[in-house]
Structures are given as structure tokens and as C-alpha cells.
């Protein structure tokens, strides 16, 4: 054993296989593959059932193949309206939260000020509040204020949980940038405002876009908080929840599959665009 080890000291080859039984590696890869399959199992079901021809009100068991759901995806106006409303809420709340959250992130990374750690901890707390508690707390606030629950209270609540997500994501993306560029800009006589718009902003925009996309997705998908503060207003997840109690049309699966396909397309385009920019 010793001589073997000594013989290996001189060789430049990294000893990758030493002590690693091949079968262990294979088992690990199979396990990972199975977990990946598990993640996709419901997705297969959702896509498959968008082609189902259900007999009753519920699209839960396979009855037969049809294309008619795809031919008429907007058959149920309440479903389409709910989806439109959710897109609206996600867009408005994300825009506001981006401004508020990014300012905090820039201040935390670029500035030194008293109470910085406190602000840092304070921003994490909303991320750790369970949604049911945050929804309940916002509901009691709106009851105390005497505000009627609806579109406005939904947007207000979404902004409240998005700010921390955006601030944390932008902050994480900003670490490790070359900030001497800012000093260089000011050394060359640019005003702080000009430096911000010409140097700082272009540096942080990719992080802000990524954070905005995350926030948009979170808003679109939010059920629990919205459920508490929505009154009689119906967003997309709220429509789906009501459907579970009454009737689940296959169009729900059609729109879910369409959203998935569009996200996939955007992801692919984004990746290709980035690759091209790096290569070009």
C-alpha cells in the first residue's frame, strides 16, 4: 500500500477512481434520475390531462383523448378573467416592489451606515413569516382600517412580500462587482447622479431583471395570502381553488401547460441571448 501511494505521488494524473467503487457512482446517478422523474410526475399528468375528455365535472380520471380543450382554451370567461387579473396584479406589484427593493439592496451593498445589520435582519423576517400568518395579519389590518378587500388590498399585500425577495436577490447578485468603476467615473468629473445612471444602474440591471421575474412568478402563484385579502375578487389561483370544490374544467390544464411552454421558451431564448452576447 505504501509503495503504491509513493509511486502515485509522482504521477500528475488525479486519482479520481481511487477508493471509489463504480457501482456507488451508478446508484447515486440512478437515485438522482429517479428524484428528477418524481419532480416531473405531476407535470406529465397535467399535460396529459389537458388532452382528456372528462365525462363529469372533474378532470381527475382518464376518459379518452381529445383535442377540443386545446381548440377552445378560453371557453370559460371567468378562468380567462382570473388569469388576466393575476397577470395585472403580478405586473403592478412587481414594478413597485422592484423600485423599493432595489434601492434597499443598493444601499446595503454600496453604502456603510449605522443600523445596517438591523435593516438586513429586518428584511429577512418577512421571508420567514408563514404565508398563513402574513395573510391573517394583513386581514386584521385591513379590518382595523375598515378597508374593503379587493384588487387594492391584493396588490398592497403582494408588494409587502415581494420587497424582501427582490432586495435579497439583487443584493446577492451585486456582490463581487468591481465598484472602483464608480470611483473612476467620479474621478473623471461625473456627478453622483450621472454616475448612478451611467455606471451603477447598467451594472445592477441584470440582477434586477432576474429578481423581477422571480417576484412576478411568486405573485402569479400566490394563493394563501391572496385568499385572506381578496374579498370577492378572483385571481387565477383562487379560481383554481374554487374549481376544486365545484368543477375542474380541462381548460385549467390547457392554460397551465401553455404557461409552462411559454416559460420554457423564454428560458431558452434568454439562455441563447446571453450565450450570444458572451461569444459576440
Amino acid at each position, binding site marked *: 500500500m505504501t509503495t503504491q501511494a509513493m509511486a502515485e505521488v509522482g504521477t500528475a494524473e488525479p486519482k479520481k477512481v481511487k477508493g471509489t467503487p463504480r457501482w456507488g*457512482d451508478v446508484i*447515486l446517478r440512478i*437515485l438522482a434520475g429517479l428524484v428528477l422523474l418524481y419532480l416531473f*410526475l405531476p407535470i406529465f399528468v397535467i399535460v396529459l390531462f389537458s388532452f382528456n375528455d372528462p365525462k363529469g365535472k372533474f378532470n381527475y380520471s382518464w376518459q379518452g383523448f381529445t383535442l377540443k380543450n386545446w381548440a377552445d382554451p378560453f371557453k370559460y370567461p371567468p378562468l380567462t378573467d382570473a388569469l388576466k387579473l393575476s397577470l395585472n396584479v403580478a405586473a403592478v406589484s412587481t414594478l413597485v416592489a422592484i423600485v423599493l427593493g432595489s434601492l*434597499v439592496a443598493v444601499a446595503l451593498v454600496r453604502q456603510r451606515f449605522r443600523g445596517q445589520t438591523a435593516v438586513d435582519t429586518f428584511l429577512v423576517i418577512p421571508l420567514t413569516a*408563514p404565508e398563513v*400568518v402574513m395573510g391573517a395579519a394583513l386581514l386584521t389590518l385591513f379590518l382595523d382600517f375598515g378597508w374593503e378587500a379587493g384588487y387594492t388590498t391584493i396588490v398592497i399585500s403582494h408588494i*409587502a412580500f415581494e420587497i424582501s425577495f427582490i432586495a435579497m436577490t439583487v443584493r446577492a447578485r451585486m456582490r463581487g462587482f468591481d465598484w472602483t468603476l464608480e470611483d473612476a467615473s467620479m474621478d473623471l468629473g461625473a456627478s453622483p447622479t450621472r454616475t448612478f445612471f451611467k455606471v451603477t444602474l447598467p451594472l445592477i440591471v441584470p440582477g434586477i431583471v432576474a429578481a423581477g421575474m422571480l417576484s412576478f412568478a411568486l405573485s402569479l402563484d400566490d394563493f394563501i395570502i391572496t385568499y385572506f385579502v381578496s374579498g370577492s375578487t378572483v385571481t387565477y*389561483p383562487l379560481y383554481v381553488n374554487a374549481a376544486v370544490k365545484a368543477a375542474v374544467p380541462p381548460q385549467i390544464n390547457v392554460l397551465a401547460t401553455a404557461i409552462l411552454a411559454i416559460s420554457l421558451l423564454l428560458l431558452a431564448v434568454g439562455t441563447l441571448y446571453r450565450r450570444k452576447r458572451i461569444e459576440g
Partner: protein
Amino acid sequence: MAGAATSNRQRSKIAPYLMILPALVYLGIFFVVPFYSLARTSLSSSGGSVYLPTLDFNWDFANYFEAFSHYQDQIIRSFVYATTATLLCLLLAFPLAYVIAFKAGRYKNLILGLVILPFFVTFLIRTIAWKTILADDGWVVGALGSIGLLPSEGRLLSTSWAVIGGLTYNWIIFMILPLYVSLEKIDPRLIEASKDLYSTNRRSFTKVILPLAMPGVLAGSLLVFIPASGDFINADYLGSTQTTMIGNVIQKQFLVVKDYPAAAALSMVLMLIILVGVLLYTRALGTEDLV
């Protein structure tokens, strides 16, 4: 000091405060004040008539005693379910995160994309899909029945395991990603070094990989445990009246029964228990690894 003076020369002292002010004011009004409202409601008692109910704030701690005595089953169940789901997430996520970090090579980004993809479908619709998969006449129940793992009249839907399975599935992404991030940071030379020093695979796993992956394990555990403990959708869609969690009670008391003080007291209990855990965690590790 000279260097600091140069880099700060044009920055005003109030600039950072102006930048954080809007967000802090917003979170003050729509995050801190709501918790004050919640706390106040939890210590109020319902009064007035059936037609014109009123809430009177009078330090009514009875709500808390009632919350514990009436709903101790749901409180205990929530924590058992959420803990089990967190452990299952860890068990399932570790091999996948490990393979992505160390074995995926040039497919790394592709697999990461695939891992995130299912979560582009609304949480509720994913849970409905599990209802189909676990249905009594579904192929999973059929397959388990035919190999004798499930008695002939056995079901999966409406059991504790269906709820725990739903919780696991819906939040596993929050375990995979932090685990991957901390495994990715490990220098492979450290693992090689441990093997050069005659460490067995098991030893280099427990002595090198696991300690370095710990921030990811802890962050992932919190990010799964917190939403899972407060969830009511999985128990509602996949469970039965025997599997209700604290979230179901809070939701029902607030939106159906409208017993605001009881619901608020339950919410406070859930929040306080989680807050203590998070504070201990951030004290020990800082906030950097949490997101």
C-alpha cells in the same frame, strides 16, 4: 483614513437612509403594523350582538389557552408533518443536488433548469395532479396493491402520507437549490485530499462533504419547514378531516367561522414558535446563506 476619505468624498451621509426609507416605511405599515393588529386581535374578546359583532381589546389571554387546548392535535400534527416532510426533502434532494454539483459536467445548467421547470406550474394545479396520481382507482394504488404493499381496501388519498407527500413535493425545490449552492462551493481538491489521506468514502462524506454542506442543509430545512408548517392546501386537497393542520384551523376560523380572536391567537402561536427557531438560526449563521 485617507483612503476612506477619498472613496466617500462625494457621498452624502443621508443618501443611504433616503434609499432604504421608502421600503422600510412600506414594510412598517404593511408588515409590522399588521402584526400589531394581529397581536391586538389575539388579546381581544368578541362582543356585541350576532348582527353587529365587536372586538374589545382587553388582554384576553384566554384565547391562547383555548388555542392550545382546542387545537393541540392540529398544532402537534402540523409540526410532525412539517418535520417529516423536511426530512424527506433532505433525503430526496441530497442525491440530486450532489449529482448536479459534482457529476453533471456540462449538463449542469440543463439539469438545474429541469429541476426548476415543474415549479412554473401553479402550486394548486400541481397538488390537483397528485390527487389524480394517488386516486383510489389510479395506477399507483393498483401497483402497490398488486405487490402487496397496500391492503386490498387500502388508500393513499386522504391519509397522513398523502399530505406529507404533497408538502414534500411542493417545497422540495427550496431544499434542492440551497443544497446545490453549498455543495457547488466545495473545492473538489478537499475531497481528493481526504482520499489521499486514506479516508474511506463514508469518512470523506461525513468528515468533509457533510460539514461543508451544512449551511445548505440548514437553510433548506428552514425554507421547507416554515411554509410546510403553515400550509393548509395539501391537507385540504390530499387529506381528510383526520389530517387537518394548524393552517386549516386558522383559515377556517378567520374566513368561515369569523372568530377573529381565536384565529389570531393560533396565528401568533405558529409565528412565535417559528420566529424563535429563525432567530437562533440567524444568530448562529448570519443571514447570508438564507437566500
